[in-house]
């Protein structure tokens, strides 16, 4: 099990790992398991601004399409291009290789979000 002590979670199942003014964003293991085989990701372009709590993209599995919401605000510095050809990385390694965005200019430390224990309680795992 990944060490998630630096991860913070939204009630909509995204995670964020904040490091100063930078952050990495993805979705939780619970979310990928619920979605099943991830087929397609719609992610913003580098340079786009994302707002905390606002939609930043969408994720599709065979079962369903779901919107993705930004845990914190910032500027998109990098998009995980590996997911274009291998979206299944979100299933196999949601906290590692399945990351989605790296953000710059992050002003929020994610302190209002759930920690691992709080998130685990939320999803009843």
């Amino acid at each position, binding site marked *: 099990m990944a060490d998630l002590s630096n991860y913070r979670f939204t009630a909509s199942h995204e995670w964020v790992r904040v490091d100063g003014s930078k952050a990495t964003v993805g979705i939780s293991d619970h979310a990928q398991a619920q979605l099943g085989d991830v*087929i397609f990701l719609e992610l913003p372009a580098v340079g786009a601004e994302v707002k905390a709590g606002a939609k930043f993209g969408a994720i599709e599995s065979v*079962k369903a399409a779901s919107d993705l919401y930004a845990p914190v605000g910032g500027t998109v510095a990098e998009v995980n291009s590996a997911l274009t050809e291998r979206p299944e990385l979100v299933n196999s390694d949601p906290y590692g290789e399945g990351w989605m965005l790296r953000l710059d200019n992050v002003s929020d430390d994610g302190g209002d979000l759930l920690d691992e224990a709080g998130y685990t309680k939320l999803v009843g795992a």
Partner: protein
Amino acid sequence: MALRTPLHDSHIAAGARMVEFGGFDMPLQYSTIREEHIAVRTRCGLFDLSHMGEVRFSGDRALDVVQRLVTNDVARLEVGGALYGVMCNEAGGIVDDVVVYREAGGYMVVINAACRPKDIAWMGDHSRDCEFEDIGDQVALLAVQGPRAVGLVSRLAAADVAELRPFHSMDTQVAGVQATVSRTGYTGEDGFELYVDSVGAPGLWDKLLDAGAAEGLIPCGLGARDTLRLEAGLRLYGQDMDENTDPYSCALGWTVKLQKGEFIGSAALTKLDSKHPPRRFVGIELQGRAIARHGQQVIAGGEPAGEVTSGTYSFTLDHSIATASLDGEVPLDAELAVDIRGTVAAATVVPLPFYRRPKGA
């Protein structure tokens, strides 16, 4: 509470993710939809389809009654033979799609789980002077599908089931369990469907999994069943057709045999132009991986042209596929697109099925 099949405990023990479908608590997947899909295309998969309903018609009037209920010509069936068809209402709309088996004493009609109460009422209203029995609770249905399915079931069966032609069945024992073995399926692969008594179903399920393990047989859920049937160009009732759809409008005109004589809906269907029905059912391929889903709008030349009936990502073809119901006036060569949650994706009409199994496989 949702109904359970006789294999419910087996699914829970296998760690299946369960989902409500057609009033039943059914396995969606045991591993992943992709893994189960690929197993059926390359090896073999085992499905619990016991949610499907079965109705038996017997007595002297059975042929007349079933012939009036379904569009296809049941009279041409010999004992052991089966055919696919639809039941229409008086307006020619599809009440359900069914498989009819000719038995020694009558007919068994296999119906969709979600339609069961409606179908039973409909059949009951049109079964005068005919013995008619809902045997859905007594009958369990297991399917073994994939290129290795025939070899596997043949090894376990008392009779030579490999000799069965498509849409033919025989009564025999499989792994010591009495079964009607049918060369049918809903995956586009070769294989069998096994109708067994509910009581014997869990034992047969375990024996099939044990015997098939070495050949890569795995249990498969409704998720893979849906992606497999769509690749194979097969319809799903409630999604691709309903009571407002005539058979011609969902490319099932081949199941309508007007020349057999009057049946329920025949008067309405006679008035339709089978070559130019109100709707046109087509297969489409989409650029990219975004999935077109049921109800999304199809656009031709900037104008609404119809809607997506079913869509998925094809694990075999590695792109997005869908079926669509188009307005009958849309030109055959129109450039199509699908509005996928606000993003317009170009679509190309392709012949159905999307996938056809290799010859000799």
